[in-house]
């Protein structure tokens, strides 16, 4: 990323929605007072969830929530790219296709036929894909949903003219800083923390639960070693596949981990 926006006095920012649940936009809305401070520093020109509507205007930064899942999405993301200096996908849908990408490995048309009384009214692509599969992206924020502080840190870095910090370390690093005992060790539950990207503040292990990987793969994620440990904790191959095939099923590292177990044929 080389086009800092600090030379703009109040950079123009848009928040776009694609196929998604709106949770990442809510993370931004839930910032409370910080959102007011943000509105002082940037010009929020398009943010449907918050009110402003101007989807076609030129902006300095476009945050994009959601995956590309319909034929219109393909055209719309191209249009947004052309009208944005920086484009930043936010959240699991935008970075990995989201939960709706579970259909990528299935017969989507059959699902539609089973679920909807008027399947002909549904116009969706066979695959749900991340924004980066269609256009150049300048930075990505992972998470389901992303956290408000993460969003602010990115905006802040851009306002200051520096590249946003990309923390691809494991959830474990945040978990240990907060003083949580490792739930995999103390309770034998299959935690995805050791292969999952930090950013959530170790929310689930802090509540005595296992991480389910909603922030996507961390750097140097040793999924083979974790899958082997899950097996020794008593998980069946099918259950191990499902650990990797949830929110971020199409993230290449998690998909490869699952495929490796499936290919062994013992699922």
């Amino acid at each position: 990323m080389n086009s800092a926006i600090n030379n703009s006095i109040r950079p123009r920012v848009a928040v776009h929605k694609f196929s998604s649940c709106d949770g990442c936009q809510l993370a931004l809305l839930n910032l409370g007072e910080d959102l007011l401070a943000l509105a002082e520093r940037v010009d929020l020109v398009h943010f449907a969830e918050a009110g402003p509507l101007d989807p076609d205007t030129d902006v300095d930064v476009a945050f994009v929530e959601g995956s590309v899942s319909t034929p219109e999405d393909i055209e719309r993301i191209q249009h947004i790219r052309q009208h944005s200096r920086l484009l930043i996908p936010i959240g699991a849908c935008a970075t990995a296709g989201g939960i709706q990408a579970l259909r990528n490995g299935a017969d989507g048309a059959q699902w539609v036929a089973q679920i909807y009384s008027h399947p002909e009214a549904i116009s969706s692509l066979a695959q749900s894909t991340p924004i980066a599969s269609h256009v150049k992206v300048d930075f990505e924020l992972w998470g389901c949903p992303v956290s408000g502080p993460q969003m602010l840190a990115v905006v802040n870095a851009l306002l200051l003219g520096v590249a946003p910090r990309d923390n691809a370390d494991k959830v474990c690093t945040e978990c240990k800083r907060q003083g949580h005992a490792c739930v995999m060790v103390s309770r034998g539950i299959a935690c995805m923390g050791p292969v999952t990207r930090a950013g959530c503040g170790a929310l689930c292990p802090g509540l005595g639960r296992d991480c389910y990987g909603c922030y996507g793969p961390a750097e140097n994620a040793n999924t083979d070693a974790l899958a082997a440990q899950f097996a020794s904790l008593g998980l069946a191959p099918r259950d191990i596949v499902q650990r990797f095939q949830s929110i971020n099923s199409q993230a290449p590292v998690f998909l490869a981990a699952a495929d490796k177990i499936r290919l062994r044929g013992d699922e």
Partner: protein
Amino acid sequence: MFSQPDRARFLPLAHLHALVAQLMQMGYQCLGPAVENGAIVMRELDDPAGLPRGLQAEQAPGRYRLTRDPHNRYFAWANGPQAIKPQAFAAKESLWRVERDDAGALQFAAVVPAAPAQAIIGVRACDLAALALQDAHFLPAGRRDAHYAQRREQLFLVAVQCAEPGATCFCASTGDGPTPTAGYDLALAELAEGFVAVAGSAKGNAVLDALSLSPATPQQIEAARQQGQAAAAAQTRSLPGRNLREALMSRLEHPRWDEVAARCLACGNCTAVCPTCFCHAEIDEPALDGGASEHARQWDSCFGEAHGHLHGFDVRSDIRTRYRQWLTHKLATWHDQFGRSGCVGCGRCIAWCPVGIDLTEEVAALTASEVQP
């Protein structure tokens, strides 16, 4: 703790709460063992009689379970996932702050931590040895770390002798336990009828004096001494020597590093639970209004991506080199920095590794055979 037997006192079992009450009365915030997420952690005690009894920690590589101690002792649990490291070396803290004043000039100000006087009850010999190493790192003459010092000076340490080492413990092999020998304000050895109590500082003496305890009998002192010897003998793990510098540095290309890298998650848990690991990263957190910024430090790990990042490239991009960095710093190059190994034999890196990588087993494998040609 038995070098001056004539100064050892005896604290009856039923009076343990009086010790805690005395510390509270002297103004200490008291931390003691508590159960959280199925493990022993140090948390604030609000009741002098609130120390849990009858807990034992069953430990194995990658596994920790609390069980009942048939003898219902207070300190039969060997240790928990974290020593007393966070009480002196905070996991995250602000070091300084900068603000823009009305004239637009930058004003820098140190952030001084508010450190309460804290008494920690249940500190182990390995934890004390580790704290001495942290002191060597953070408090060398001429460049004392103000933030660490602020907390460290406020600590009152009540050590306990380990009578029931975990299966992952090997402090006897590193020479750091299981009986505390230095670095405590008070040390306790738990017997069936009560505690042999020894002061290690003027502050500790003042506490014992205030409790008006009778002297420990020679039989009680001997029982405690033997209990420590038995706990040392019961340890099943060990390192092949106390100085493995040459043994490890001559095996930097050993195939075992690849083998362990295949199992290692590079999650950094071993470094976070290690009581001597002191690596940290410094980060800036600017306020959204652009008028101020905090400069903070937080625990970092040699298993993380940024730790080995130099301008333009990463010196340790794979798990093999990261694991090698951890082990060779801890057991080899630590000697160059601090005159001893960085391992105190607490075994936390073994128990709390999610995949159960055993440091003693890796060292044995690395040093057993010659390097393959």
